[in-house]
């Protein structure tokens, strides 16, 4: 069964029917937002059932939109959290990627500014590595990007997409060895992105990030994961009651190859390790469980089939 990421937008009225339908299809609801009278669902559903969902949602005035980034956690790396980079550039990009379904975390580096003095600490590096992809928001000068790039890619194992002021061709020329993706013409700016050419650039970011994510999906498909992260999320939500006490809007974040559980590691790691996914198969057998560098969360990375010999 091939699951495809979608966003459903509709009214609150009878939206529980949509929730039931997605569950009955064998799909997973990754995020659910209720904003006033509107419900927004980020979900993974079987490809063959998209038409059925559209059919059922039509009388409810619901809309089913493909959202290529549902089920991914993306690090938006800003060179600092000073007025020079916030709110525009960093927030605009992070917000736009969320509309495409991604769960974005903004990482403001403590000392990321400057071509010579820019640094990436080990904590920042580890946090970036916990994501599916890192989107670097650089400045407007190619000299600076070229000089600081080696420092900022050192130790980063996830695909890097670079945003910067110079054109895409220049970025491709100056960054050696190449990174996974490039977006030119979007460096440092201090105004809200609302002009058509700026929105087109944000669309370009979504396209480029989706392309890199698709490449990673293809790579993962060659040695499939022992359990789908979305299913793992469902199991944790069902079998760990403490997760419902978490006030965070998304207590279990689905990543491409794992989940981030927003429960403290020390008291709950053992509980999660013992959760039964299916008929005698416990989470510990198919996942690496480790403390996340982000607060005190638990990070689960699903082992591939080649390692466990199991497909749940």
């Amino acid at each position, binding site marked *: 069964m091939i699951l495809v990421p979608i966003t459903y937008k509709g009214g609150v009225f009878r939206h529980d029917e949509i929730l039931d339908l997605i569950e009955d299809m064998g799909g997973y609801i990754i995020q659910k937002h209720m904003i006033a009278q509107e419900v927004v669902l980020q979900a993974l559903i079987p490809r063959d059932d998209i038409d059925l969902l559209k059919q059922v949602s039509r009388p409810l005035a619901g809309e089913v939109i493909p959202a290529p980034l549902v089920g991914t956690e993306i690090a938006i790396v800003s060179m600092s959290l000073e007025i020079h980079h916030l709110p525009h550039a960093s927030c605009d990009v992070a917000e736009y990627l969320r509309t495409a379904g991604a769960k974005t975390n903004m990482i403001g580096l403590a000392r990321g500014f400057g071509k010579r003095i820019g640094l990436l600490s080990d904590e920042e590096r580890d946090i970036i590595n916990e994501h599916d992809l890192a989107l670097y928001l650089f400045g407007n000068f190619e000299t600076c990007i070229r000089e600081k790039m080696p420092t900022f890619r050192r130790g980063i194992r996830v695909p890097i997409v670079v945003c910067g002021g110079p054109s895409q061709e220049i970025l491709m020329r100056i960054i050696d060895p190449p990174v996974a993706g490039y977006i030119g013409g979007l460096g440092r700016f*201090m105004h809200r992105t609302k002009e058509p050419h700026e929105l087109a650039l944000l669309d370009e970011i979504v396209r480029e990030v989706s392309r890199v994510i698709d490449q990673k999906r293809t790579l993962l498909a060659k040695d499939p994961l022992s359990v789908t992260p979305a299913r793992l999320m469902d199991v944790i939500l069902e079998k760990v009651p403490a997760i419902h006490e978490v006030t965070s809007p998304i207590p279990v974040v689905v990543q491409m190859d794992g989940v981030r559980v927003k429960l403290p590691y020390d008291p709950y790691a053992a509980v999660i390790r013992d959760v039964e996914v299916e008929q005698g198969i416990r989470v510990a057998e198919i996942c690496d469980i480790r403390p996340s560098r982000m607060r005190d969360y638990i990070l689960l990375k699903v082992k591939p089939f080649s390692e466990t010999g199991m497909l749940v």
Partner: protein
Amino acid sequence: MSTLEYFEVESTETVGAQLYRRIASTVITDHNLLKVLERLRIWIDPQIPIFIAVGVTRTVPRMITVSDLAGVTYDGQKITLAIADEMYLADLLLVLWKTFGKDQVSQPDRFTIEIQTGVDAATSGIEELAVADPTEGLFKDLIYSMQVICPEGFRIKRQDFDEGKFWFVASENTLPEDVFPLVVEQFRIMGVSP
């Protein structure tokens, strides 16, 4: 930016200069400095690296004196000030305390200040006493906006403001001992003698 007589942002990198022109334009508008600025020139060389901004302000407000913000009446050895503009009242009190001593200055109500001079009040020259320098605030606003415009990594800064002309130089590395020749060069390109 149409109200500026001269506005140029130049750099060794053309694309960077264009993008920084937009940043400068946004910051100046956001900080409400359009009415104040007459000419502005920014030069950025990311290879050195250095950021130089030079500019000319439109009008320089003069020093605020006691007679600008209060009516002065003399009565023997007593001066009575009738406050007309409260904006600089705090500064005025500080100046009066310093000049005449705190025990000689009293404020019976919000708009009245009485001062015992001990000598003939009319000879005290209080009307010309300087209270505040509005250019100081203007200078701070201008330099703050330049700091926002300039790349964040440029942490070493030097600046000056004199007779309606200001300059701001910043770099990521140590600045040369004498940055004035660099500033003079930019003023010259802008067509203004520093």
